[in-house]
């Protein structure tokens, strides 16, 4: 009997989480069925074609760049052994802590001295900056997949007369295609959701359009229609990723030993280290050095106390918001993953609905959540005086809709690696599903959850569009500060909050690396 009750409770939990996470997406989808033709016609004649082509071009450039850079760097540190490999291998993840809009304005200023203020505002430079800040997604996924490549597979290929380049192109890349595709899909989502970097380089993408229309003209219908068009592109990206996977999932570790890295000679080792170091310098050291110089300049010229006070207030808001949202995402995601586990395929399919928000670019989620919450407010279901739009709860809800997938997939991927016999043993030893979850499953996936939390935290600290659209009065995050300063080209003013973002991000990335070292899984 108790089994039946537990089962119903689990299903109820699954449905509640999925309904909450899916509502804004469904609300938006319903607006597709009821398009306002007047606005569409106007958009088509004016801005939309340009936005679509710029979005597509930027997307193609950044995805290509990150796949090439991320995969080859991952192969270099996975397949070869050279002095400093371990340290540089982890340092290559550091750009994850640098938001595109921060790296963007540091490089923008540095480059405008070279190519002039006009020439610098180009789609290609924007793509280059995004590649340098986003390649770690592909790099991390590809490294994890290369680590699972069996030594015997590589040895067999060698034995059949395949050289090192052949092993990379004919064995490693095809075997790890699902992982690389998953990383590339994440990159694509980040590009579609980006509003800060594209604004810096004057690239008018669909996400940028949503923000401009929302803030500029206040035509909410037009913004909603644009958001729908953006969703269309996102759906296309997901479809392409599924096709690339070709039904294959992230390859499981092959039996036997992992591939042993090949020792490089003196010259080869120097070249490998120099290549990796050059990337780290361009992606991390140069922008951070520029930020530090500005920050020093600002603190010299202005009163230190004011700057410190501003940093304290904004950093406080950022930490409060990021940790609340991360805890909500990891908590609900883990609950959902635990409820879905051992419930078969249909439960998994329902669970996946909760991750729809992750496929939606930030501005889209923001618009969907505003529309949903406004409806709830209008229907007056809540006690008088409680308004969701513009509340902290509303903002956290929107962030949870967008990022729940990170927590859910992190927990699910780790749970997949818990041997079923372990859960069975616990049950046979007299544990009900609650104790199995608390005493066996949660401890077993702790590093997976740590990795997912770190990833979530970085995402939240960098997040811009949702925070910008939904933040309540008094919640001024560091990212919003940077956004406001950079939109008026006040680079020096943006430097201090940028540095704080990077510092918080680096701490979270460090935590992520610790978790990965201990065998955490980030994707399923």
């Amino acid at each position, binding site marked *: 009997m108790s089994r039946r009750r537990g089962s119903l409770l689990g299903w109820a939990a699954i449905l509640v989480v999925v309904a909450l996470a899916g509502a804004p997406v469904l609300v938006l989808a319903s607006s597709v069925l009821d398009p306002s033709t007047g606005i569409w016609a106007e958009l088509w004649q004016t801005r939309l074609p340009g936005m679509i082509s710029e979005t597509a071009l930027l997307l193609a450039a950044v995805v290509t760049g990150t796949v090439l850079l991320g995969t080859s760097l991952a192969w270099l540190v996975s397949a070869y052994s050279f002095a400093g490999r371990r340290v540089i291998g982890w340092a290559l993840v550091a750009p994850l802590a640098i938001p595109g809009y921060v790296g963007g304005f540091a490089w923008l200023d540095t480059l405008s001295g070279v190519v002039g203020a006009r020439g610098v505002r180009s789609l290609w430079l924007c793509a280059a900056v995004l590649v340098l800040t986003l390649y770690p997604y592909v790099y991390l996924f590809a490294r994890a997949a290369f680590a699972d490549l069996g030594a015997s597979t590589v040895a067999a290929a060698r034995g059949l007369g395949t050289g090192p380049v052949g092993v990379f192109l004919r064995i490693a890349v095809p075997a790890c295609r699902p992982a690389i595709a998953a990383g590339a899909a994440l990159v694509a989502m980040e590009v579609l959701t980006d509003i800060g970097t594209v604004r810096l380089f004057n690239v008018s993408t669909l996400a940028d359009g949503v923000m401009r229309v929302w803030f500029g003209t206040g035509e909410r219908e037009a913004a909603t229609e644009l958001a729908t068009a953006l969703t269309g592109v996102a759906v296309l990206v997901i479809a392409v990723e599924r096709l690339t996977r070709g039904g294959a999932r992230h390859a499981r570790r092959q039996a036997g030993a992992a591939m042993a890295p090949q020792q490089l000679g003196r010259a080869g080792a120097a070249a490998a280290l120099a290549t990796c170091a050059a990337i780290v310098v361009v992606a991390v050291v140069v922008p951070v050095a520029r930020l530090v110089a500005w920050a020093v300049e600002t603190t010299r010229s202005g009163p230190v106390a004011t700057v410190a006070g501003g940093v304290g207030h904004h950093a406080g808001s950022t930490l409060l918001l990021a940790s609340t949202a991360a805890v909500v995402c990891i908590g609900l995601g883990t609950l959902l993953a635990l409820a879905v586990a051992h419930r078969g395929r249909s439960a998994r399919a329902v669970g996946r609905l909760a991750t729809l928000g992750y496929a939606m670019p930030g501005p889209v989620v923001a618009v969907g959540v505003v529309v949903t919450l406004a409806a709830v407010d209008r229907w007056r279901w809540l006690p008088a005086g409680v308004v969701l739009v513009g509340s902290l709860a509303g903002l956290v809800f929107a962030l949870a809709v967008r990022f729940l997938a990170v927590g859910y997939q992190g927990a699910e991927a780790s749970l997949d690696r818990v041997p079923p016999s372990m859960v069975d043993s616990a049950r*046979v030893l007299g544990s009900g599903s609650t104790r199995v979850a608390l005493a066996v499953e949660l401890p077993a996936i702790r590093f997976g959850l740590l990795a997912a939390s770190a990833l979530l935290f970085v995402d939240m600290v960098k997040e811009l569009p949702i925070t910008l659209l939904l933040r309540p009065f008094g919640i001024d995050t560091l990212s919003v500060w940077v956004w406001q300063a950079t939109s008026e080209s006040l680079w020096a003013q943006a430097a201090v909050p940028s540095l704080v973002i990077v510092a918080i991000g680096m701490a979270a990335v460090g935590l992520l690396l610790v978790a990965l070292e201990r065998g955490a899984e980030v994707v399923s």
Partner: protein
Amino acid sequence: MSGEHGEGIVKGPALEARGLRCSLGGRTVLDGVDVEVPAGALLALVGPSGCGKSTLLRALAGLASLDAGRVQIGGRDVTDLVAERRRVGLVFQDNALFGHLRVDRNVAFGLRHLPRAERAALVAEMLELVGLGRLARRYPHQLSGGEQQRVALARALAPSPEVVLLDEPFGALDESLREDLGWEVKSILERRRTAAVLVTHDRHEALTLGDRVAVMEVGRIVQHGTARDVYRAPASRFVAGFIAVASYLRAADGSEVLVRPHQLRVVEGGPHSVERVEFLGPTHRYTIRTSAGDALVADLGPDAPLAVGARCDVEVLAR
């Protein structure tokens, strides 16, 4: 043989299952299986991979759901009980120890109902029983494969279950270790007077360790008896060939008689020919092609081994 006539008290079977049916994904995996394990006895459940023996074990433990049939453990009908209430012990091939818990905490996992002091005493006793008292504070990954498997056994035995189910517990171990650990596990179970079901695909393991042997073939138990019975009087050609090497001699009336390799002696010269010679250490194993075209396997032969292709004859020794 042990607990069967234990203290002269007539006790019901430790485990009794009748008419178990189970299908997974439209495929019938268990097709009317009956199992009975007397108190304190070890039943070896043997069969080729995919015959349903692991599913049977999971069904007995309550981990696989049944379409039909009843399961009784210690005289108590547990068919409608979930796994956590059946009070059986379970040991897996991959030991399934909880990696985040120390050895003693692993063993204590099923003892939450006991007061702390009693629990600690029982854990110490169990670890002594499996000879690992000194490793109580280690973590599973710091132990060897054989040690891990002993911890898994101690953990399964700690709550004093009526029956312990062992799913290929020695499958992941080296051959040299496997045999010793097998005997040790058997003697531990005997000391605790705990009945057990040992699932294995290793016929040697089944014959040597099992007080009783049940042979499974595609979802059914095709023979159930003592190791001796199953070896000497197999119920079918499948059982005969699965449990040990079998040859058949054709009698004059056309019927066939089962002979084991040790019952056949090869002699030089004759109507048959030697097809293969394997060196087994103490003897040579000959595969003989008879003039009628049948294959016979014999373990006895002349002192100087015959060569492949040599003419030969076979003599049948009394059983």
